[in-house]
């Protein structure tokens, strides 16, 4: 079922094969790093255009080397580790963010087949049979980096940020996965290469059209939340949380977070292109020896378009409130994703089943809406501020108090934190 990379169909692991794999890995790494520096520059430039500013324009032509300069500066800055921090976890966290960001890119098909020295291979670092699950797994692991960075800082705002992050990313992962399933129903494979192959041809073969656009929109929203990008960036809401989970970080560790953030934007764009926009698919003019270039160009163009869209989001949309964010995730995205998945699955079998599924979805949806409305009306008792022994912790209200920073509410640790801050200053 899964068409494996033809590179490995030959006579086992020869030196040439090994070298090709090694080159693929190195190239992917280098390209991604380069792309990130470009992405940072692109974002700053595009945003400044949208805000009628000039943006970076001093280092290199059009300020292109600004990111490089910033990187060098960060590299030589003092590496601060807060006294209250958990040193090991504090140092570990940045890597837990960066490594998954790289790994996701490994399963993205960036082009078609290429033949070098009688070895035909796919332009993609790895094509495991459960490729798309690897993407989900890596985004699951990335949560740890954010959470642990906030916790290990031993500081109040980063901790709040990491609590928000864990809740947000876990919630939206469900919606994310559900929409991937809709794609899988049509492609019959978990391999990213197969998913791309199934969308070959003109644009109406793309999953965007075949799944009926809705899963793409839902996936886009969920992915934005998963990336903690605006308008879902409550994790690092500067006006509330100083700078979020990475407030206490400096120097190269901060650079790693920064790197990962933009790298994730690129890889998530690439994942969306792979799932819904046919990956490298597109018209290929018949130019000898250069046919292999066009898929890569198509792929790059699509990814850049998505990156631009993310920048646009950031410039145009106001940040959501935390409770709105959770409501959107659990009460809208997840039921809608499930419903659409059901419809697509039924439609694959026959239109009769599709009608049945439609009826079920309408019924379920109206029931759910009714229940949510009633739930909002129902009077809830005020909760105790913090659960003492024997009283149940109730995330809803208390979480809101913590995350929205209600003035009346004081965390037990706040006194201790204040003390420790004084100690540090002294």
């Amino acid at each position, binding site marked *: 079922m899964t068409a494996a990379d033809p590179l490995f169909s030959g006579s086992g692991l020869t030196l040439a094969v090994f070298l090709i794999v090694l080159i693929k890995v190195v190239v992917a790494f280098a390209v991604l790093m380069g792309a990130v520096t470009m992405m940072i520059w692109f974002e700053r430039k595009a945003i400044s255009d949208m805000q009628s500013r000039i943006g970076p324009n001093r280092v290199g032509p059009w300020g292109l080397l600004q990111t490089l300069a910033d990187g060098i500066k960060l590299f030589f800055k003092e590496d601060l580790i807060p006294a209250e921090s958990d040193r090991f976890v504090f140092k570990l966290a940045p890597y837990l963010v960066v490594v998954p960001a790289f790994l996701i890119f490994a399963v993205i098909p960036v082009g078609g087949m290429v033949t070098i020295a009688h070895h035909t291979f796919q332009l993609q670092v790895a094509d495991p049979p459960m490729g798309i699950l690897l993407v989900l797994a890596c985004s699951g692991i990335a949560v740890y980096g954010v959470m642990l960075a906030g916790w290990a800082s031993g500081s109040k705002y980063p901790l709040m940020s990491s609590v928000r992050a864990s809740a947000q990313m876990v919630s939206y992962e469900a919606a994310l996965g559900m929409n991937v399933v809709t794609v899988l129903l049509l492609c*019959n494979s978990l391999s990213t290469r197969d998913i791309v192959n199934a969308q070959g041809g003109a644009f109406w073969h793309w999953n965007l059209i075949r799944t009926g656009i809705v899963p793409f929109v839902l996936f886009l929203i969920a992915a934005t939340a998963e990336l903690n990008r605006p308008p879902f960036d409550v994790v690092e809401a500067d006006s509330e949380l100083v700078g979020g989970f990475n407030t206490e970080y400096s120097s190269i560790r901060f650079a790693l977070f920064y790197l990962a953030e933009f790298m994730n934007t690129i890889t998530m764009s690439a994942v969306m292109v792979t799932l819904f926009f046919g990956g490298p698919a597109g018209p290929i003019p018949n130019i000898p020896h250069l046919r292999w270039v066009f898929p890569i160009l198509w792929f790059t163009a699509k990814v850049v378009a998505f990156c631009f869209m993310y920048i646009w989001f950031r410039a145009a949309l106001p940040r959501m409130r935390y409770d709105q964010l959770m409501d959107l995730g659990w009460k809208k995205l997840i039921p809608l994703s499930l419903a659409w998945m059901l419809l697509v699955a039924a439609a694959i079998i026959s239109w009769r089943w599709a009608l049945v599924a439609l009826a079920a979805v309408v019924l379920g949806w109206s*029931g759910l809406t*009714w*229940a949510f409305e*009633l*739930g909002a009306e129902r009077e809830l008792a005020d909760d105790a501020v913090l659960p003492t022994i*024997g009283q*149940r912790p109730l995330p809803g209200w208390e979480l809101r108090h913590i995350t929205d920073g209600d003035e009346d509410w004081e965390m037990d640790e706040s006194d201790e934190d204040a003390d420790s801050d004084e100690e540090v200053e002294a």
Partner: protein
Amino acid sequence: MNHLALPTVSYAALAPILFLLLGGVALMVLSALSRRPLAAGTVTGYSVLIGFGALISALAEYGHVNGAGPSSTVASAIAVDGFSAAIAVTVSVVVILASLLSHGYLRRMQIDAPAYHVLALTSASGAIIMAAANDLVVLFLGLEILSIALYVLAALNRRSAKSEEAALKYFILGGFSSAIFLFGIAFTYGATGSTNLQVITRTLGEGVAAKPGLLLAGLGLLLVGFFFKVAAVPFHLWTPDVYEGAPTPVTGFMAAAAKVGGFAALLRVLLTAMPQLSTNWTPVVYSVAVATLIGGAVLMVVQRDAKRMLAYSSINHAGFLLVGIVAATSAGISADLFYLFTYSVTALATFGIVTMLAGPRDDDAGIDRLSGLARRHPAIGAAMAILLLAQAGVPFTTGFIAKFSVIEAVVGHGSIPLAIIAMASAAVAVFAYLRLVATLYRTEDIATVDLGYDDSLTDGPAAFAIGLSVVVTIFFGIFPAALLDFGRTAVAHLLP
């Protein structure tokens, strides 16, 4: 793409499970969609109706099996036989009685009635799944459906710290035992290559018999999991605390449903999947039975709290049920079936009365509170006395027939010492029960103190359920033949 051959599903055979599970889910949806909270009476009525639906479908299944013989359904994951039908009947009766018994309590304690009933119904479906499971995976899922609902039920009394403590203890120890049980399933699967009970039996005859180490380890871990669920000594330590802390109607439900489910599954696994290993498991069950009989009876005597005493009493009953397993004959199984049914009814009703007496906060079930009850409220005192005597095994009650048939079965099997120990433990237990009965009829200090339970005694549905249970206890105590035959026929149609 080739088509899936979906397994055939006999919905008639699954009807008791579906009634309870879907009934519970439907109630959940209804209560989420109704603008005003559902009235407690409506919910209780609904629950009783669902229980009756399950009862009728279980009886229909029983009748069907009597004609067509045992079979299995859904890719042989569920056994359709007399045994599972008989257990389904028992559980349905438990559901009906428990709904009636909890009605007044939920109102008094202002506990959300739909929540209780949803959890109780689904939990009961778990017990039936356990009994009907023909596959260890299904069995485990039934066990978890039963247990998880019970953990939450134990914490339902939000005003009582004891209730939370009970739930937490039950949850942690239960989770631990579930893990051990799962480990046992994994070992068994590793040794036999299947989780299906019939396939396990078949493979037992082949390569496994020569090197049974892994399978025996699996069996041992499975037994530990089972012994925990049915509260056999030495895995009983959670029982008194949980029984004491949980809301009293929940305790009754727990004592009945968990025990029925646990013993049904234990019987099926030992006697249909691993009868070839009986030389290995009999000594284990034998010694645990002895410990349970003695431990339950002796510790019962020293309790000062009615709920704790009844907890140890249920442990003692577990010992008797284990005696039936040691017998390992069809007489033993049918005796256990009879025992489970009658024990469930009496235990539920006893806890029902304790519910009425445990005070307005349901936090004091000290034996002193029963002092002179029969003088102040003759009817309830008499009912309590009868139920206690039935648990003690006094003639002309079901308790006597149950204990007698279990001991008869084990004597028939040739384990005379076990029979003697069982009788001795019964004698010790009788002392504890009689002391409680004597307390009921004490004449001194029925003084003017207000024990705070006069209101709770006028609880119509509970009184009706208790009355019904007393009638059942006495009727089948005098005319047990019909019920015993029911059990024997059920065992005759056990899926091999």
